[in-house]
């Protein structure tokens, strides 16, 4: 374990202590939202950073997970956990399908197709207002009746850590090697007997399933969801988080999500300017430090260590 990994683990350990050392509820709430974005940003990085497939439908997939979980709970009277799992399955299966459908598309063509899928999802959720209350928003029952902020915080911390660990487990397996080989060269990977079609589709499905989980948990935490959680603007925040944290690594991307959410709250006086500044930082990062803040930090510590 390198020095950098110890520092990151230290952060996670510190995060686990926060409710015990009396951090205000307001900040626990902020961090819980940050952990939602951590899951979403790392799920996006799983696809973009490792498989080299771009998607702008990640926020929409999170929304799909959220709406499926909420609606199945409402109309089928399912308990929270099974409805959450249905949300994950819906996002995963749709992702798998989109991944399979877009096998031959690359780069900007894939970007445009995923924008189209994301927007169609958002428009559908908005249009079917008898079912979803449209843009007025849908009331959601809580994850656990009567639970306080600290409970939610721990649930989200556990979910985020578990998600990232699962992703790392997948990436360390031979499947992760196939993903990265596909990112580097698809024909070259196929020439070595790797079923490129299967793994490209499956990567899409895995990534969207994690997004669906994040969205479902989020819905039962904030208890009011609107179609705006599926918008391209929301997608832009997720992209900025992953890029600033470092989209080539699921761990960096996750930390990017938490970091940006903390900054967003800490710099409240700056109003809308915060988001403009995040945009500028994301652009500068892409141009000059494509491994993101945490990639840069890791390099720095490596050189010192």
């Amino acid at each position, binding site marked *: 374990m390198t020095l950098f990994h110890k520092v990151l683990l230290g952060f996670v350990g510190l995060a686990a202590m926060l409710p015990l050392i009396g951090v205000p509820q307001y900040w626990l709430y902020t961090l819980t939202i940050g952990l939602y974005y951590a899951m979403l940003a790392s799920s996006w990085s799983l696809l973009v950073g490792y498989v080299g497939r*771009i998607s702008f439908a990640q926020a929409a997939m999170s929304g799909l997970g959220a709406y499926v979980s909420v609606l199945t709970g409402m109309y089928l009277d399912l308990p929270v956990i099974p409805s959450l799992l249905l949300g994950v399955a819906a996002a995963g299966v749709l992702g798998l399908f989109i991944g399979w459908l877009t096998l031959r598309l690359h780069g900007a063509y894939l970007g445009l197709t995923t924008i189209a899928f994301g927007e169609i999802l958002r428009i559908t959720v908005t249009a079917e207002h008898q079912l979803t209350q449209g843009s007025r928003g849908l009331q959601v029952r809580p994850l656990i009746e009567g639970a306080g902020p600290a409970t939610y915080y721990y649930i989200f911390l556990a979910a985020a850590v578990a998600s990232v660990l699962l992703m790392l487990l997948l990436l360390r397996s031979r499947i992760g090697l196939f993903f990265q080989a596909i990112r580097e060269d698809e024909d070259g990977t196929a020439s070595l007997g790797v079923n490129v079609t299967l793994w490209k589709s499956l990567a899409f499905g895995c990534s969207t399933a994690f997004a669906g989980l994040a969205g479902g948990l989020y819905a039962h935490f904030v208890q009011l969801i609107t179609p705006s959680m599926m918008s391209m603007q929301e997608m832009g925040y997720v992209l*900025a988080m992953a*890029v600033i944290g470092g989209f080539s690594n699921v761990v960096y991307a996750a930390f990017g999500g938490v970091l940006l959410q903390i900054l967003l709250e800490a710099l409240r006086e700056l109003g809308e300017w915060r988001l403009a500044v995040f945009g500028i930082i994301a652009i500068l990062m892409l141009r000059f430090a494509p491994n993101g803040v945490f990639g840069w930090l890791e390099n720095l510590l490596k050189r010192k260590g």
Partner: protein
Amino acid sequence: MTLVAIAEQAANGLIISTFYALIALGIALIFGVLKIVNFAHGEFYMLGGYSCYLAVTLLGLPPIFGVVFAVVILMAVGVLVEQTLIKPIHTGKVDRPDEYAIMITFALAIMLLNLANSVFGPWPQSPAPVSRGIVEFGELIIPGDRLSAAGIGILLIVGLLLILRYTWAGKAVRAVSQDRAAAETFGINISRVSMLSFGAGAALAGAAGALIGPVFNVVPAMGAVPAIKAYIVVVLGGLGSIPGAIVGALILGQVEVFATILIPDTNRALAYKDAYGLVVLILVLLVRPQGLFGKPERRA
């Protein structure tokens, strides 16, 4: 439906098509020369709207100069963006050029959107239109602001086509679009043509924003929907194809107005209005990625 109603819808479709074409032509021009899709195009359009608003409402210039002002400002913005963010792609300074191009323009879009939110606030502004009143063609009634905006839009499109066809710069742009390597051997300065096309593409979006601003109000988020329409248009016509962008715009304009009135449940039809084109986009990319006018790509 009466004949007049049909004609009115068709005319509406044509007017909308003009703006779609104006925005789409910019995307096509940029894709043709630089082989990248500019995901910040809707925000260029929005900046055009605000440039016009600044010139007309704050500086008190006549509305037509608002459009000129927007064109000049967006040309400058386009050139600046090309020089700082896009040029590194073609000079080998970026590791993963494809991913970089997509993400950097997407991040630029988010940045410009939030910048406009910070500077101008989320409130709608409405600069004075080039002309007011209504125009009557027999029984057909068309609002004057839309008609004049579309008229200027058509003039701009014709102007662009003439420039591409007859001027040296236009020929250079077409040469680079068709075959970059060959154009280079013939002594065409690729980096200058790239800068010019990105600037011109941004200026076209700016013009569209300036023309529509007075009709539908200027707000920071105004670019999102038209940009997506323009992506549908260029994909339908074939990415990078100039005639494709125009024909694609004509088709989409008509499809949208008639699809909406042909579906019996009006509320539902309207709610899904923006989704029809997206379905078209997905189908085209899956079945015929080169669009109506593009050449198929051959994989090596």
